[in-house]
């Protein structure tokens, strides 16, 4: 089970980094108590505890934020959670020992690794049924999906290969030979290149996703394990378990640009803040998290957390890091401004991985105009703003319209079920008015603001 824990913790880190999740509710898998703790990231309190299948390993959340899927490694099932009510609405039978679960960007299909069956189950998320079971290599370890949602890559630990799955047909396109003991895959944000850590050959394999050929092998430290790519796609960071270093790979030249010595033993899991400024990594042997400045590639802080820190998750505003501490059943909350632990939250037994819900995207296609409503003795001058709902991500439940960029002066709110229009009455003539509109989801998560001025 320790081995499984090791696998699943690291997998979750990469899923978070690959899908750039933005948070407002954090879902923590508690492996020892077969529950999910739901943490409200605004208050850092447990909002709900959900009983799921045996040995929950990882949570994946649909792009619209309405549903969470949990791989239950010990019961060979996937639990379906309604995120509005935080209740289990369905349980789907899959293969033996489901570990890693990823959802396509269009939210239509989930892929689950069945580690003991050497297969991947494809689940139709509309019907919550398994539509295909795809045979892959021996001991599949990790799965990730390209940003365009067309291809899934699976590392096969014991066959030293990567299986490439065509998502449209749920068939294997090709199987690529990589290094020994392939672990994690990270795909660049533009989707052109995949990087695979090979733990026993101390290399990173580079895969061209257009041709599905291995184009390079980069030597890194001893026992490379986890990998994450900065949001600008320029640098990949790799933890080297046995050399106590982090390798920074220049993705333009596919060479190690710098090797960063860290202060702890066996750096294992890492995560990059959404703003790309800081790498946070957790160690296998010590209760610390280290922060690395990506501009200087220097260690800036080492923060003490709970014992056995596992998967890091970072809020979309890059302000907070959540660290599950498996050995004392808590989650440490780190303020990235000060790199200090600001809260410790009690959760279930053996918290393993955290997945944080995305924030909605801001509205787009904003348009504004002025109009008048003339009465015999009075005129109501009206500013009219219209917009379109975000085309991807979580569906907002309403929109908030502010008069200032600091988002302190609320002008009004519009329900997403109504016409997406706001009218600001009794405005003055010959005056410029600015409006800032943010999307709000069911859990109160806010998008960044989209602004418009009417003159």
């Amino acid at each position: 089970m320790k081995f499984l824990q090791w696998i699943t913790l690291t997998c979750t880190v990469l899923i978070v980094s690959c899908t750039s999740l933005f948070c407002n509710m954090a879902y923590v898998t508690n492996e020892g108590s077969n529950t999910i703790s739901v943490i409200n990231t605004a208050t850092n309190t447990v909002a709900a505890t959900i009983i799921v299948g045996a040995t929950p390993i990882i949570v994946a959340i649909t792009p619209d934020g309405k549903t969470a899927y949990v791989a239950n490694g010990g019961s060979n099932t996937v639990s379906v959670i309604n995120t509005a009510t935080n209740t289990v609405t369905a349980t789907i039978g899959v293969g033996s020992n489901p570990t890693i679960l990823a959802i396509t960007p269009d939210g239509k299909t989930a892929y689950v690794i069945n580690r003991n069956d050497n297969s991947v189950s494809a689940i139709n998320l509309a019907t919550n049924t398994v539509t295909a079971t795809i045979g892959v290599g021996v001991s599949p370890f990790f799965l990730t999906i390209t940003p365009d949602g067309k291809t899934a890559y699976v590392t096969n630990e014991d066959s030293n290969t990567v299986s490439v799955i065509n998502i449209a047909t749920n068939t294997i396109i090709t199987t690529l030979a990589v290094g020994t003991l392939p672990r994690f895959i990270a795909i660049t944000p533009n989707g052109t290149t995949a990087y695979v850590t090979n733990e026993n050959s101390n290399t990173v394999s580079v895969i061209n996703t257009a041709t599905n050929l291995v184009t390079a092998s980069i030597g890194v430290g001893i026992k490379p394990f986890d990998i994450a790519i900065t949001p600008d796609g320029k640098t990949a960071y790799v933890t080297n378990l046995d050399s106590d270093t982090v390798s920074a790979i220049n993705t333009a030249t596919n060479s190690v640009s710098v090797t960063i010595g860290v202060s702890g033993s066996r750096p294992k899991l890492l995560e990059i803040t959404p703003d790309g400024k800081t790498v946070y990594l957790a160690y296998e042997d010590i209760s610390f998290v280290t922060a690395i400045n990506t501009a200087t590639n220097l260690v800036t802080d080492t923060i003490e957390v709970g014992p056995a820190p596992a998967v890091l998750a970072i809020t979309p505003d890059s302000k907070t890091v959540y660290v599950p501490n498996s050995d004392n059943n808590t989650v440490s909350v780190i303020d990235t401004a000060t790199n200090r632990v600001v809260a410790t939250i009690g959760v279930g037994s053996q918290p393993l991985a955290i997945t944080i819900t995305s924030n909605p995207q801001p509205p787009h296609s904003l348009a504004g105009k002025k109009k008048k409503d003339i009465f015999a003795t009075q005129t109501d001058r009206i500013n009219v703003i219209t917009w379109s709902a975000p085309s991807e991500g979580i569906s907002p439940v309403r929109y908030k319209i502010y008069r200032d960029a600091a988002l302190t002066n609320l002008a009004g709110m519009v329900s997403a079920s109504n016409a997406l229009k706001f009218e600001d009455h009794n405005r003055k003539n010959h005056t410029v008015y600015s409006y800032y509109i943010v999307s709000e989801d069911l859990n109160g998560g806010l998008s960044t603001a989209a602004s418009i001025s009417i003159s």
Partner: protein
Amino acid sequence: MKKTLLFFLFLLLACPLLSMNVTLEGKGGFFIPPTSACKRSMAVGRSMEGSSHGVSTRSWISMQMRCFLAKSGKSLGERRSTHIRILPVGIGLKGSLPFDPFEIYVAASTKHFTVKIHNNSPYVDQHQEKNGWGWGAKIGVSFFFANHFLLDLFLEYMRKEFSFSHSKKVESRKEVDIGGGVIGGALGYRF
């Protein structure tokens, strides 16, 4: 307002005592608001409506009490309903030229206006009321078709400017001319 009405009522009741011939008329008319905004906002609404009844003497002194002049319409833009009611009460001089069975007359009077406006919008002042003194002029012709009964056709113009203050931060207009024209007819009985 009440004192003004009581004053005019007193004058009307005093007419018989002053040996004046009193005519009681039921009137209907077409009210034309005077100001641009008022006219435009009312013009997009329902057809105008107006009615009045009054008492006038046959002598040089004329007193009139109208029930109201009213009009409903829609605001320009959002097409919200708006209503205006005007109660003009006046006293003045009247000259008539008989061409039996017709009688042509002209009149000028000072009038006390009471104006009530209701706007069906939460973004402007919904209820407004003003009163004050203005003036009016009238020309008409009466046709006596029976012993005491007459049919009256008239054209009247009234003028009174009001400044409305507004409680909301809404753009307001000063010196709104609230009078206007009335084209109407009446069926009367002369005592």
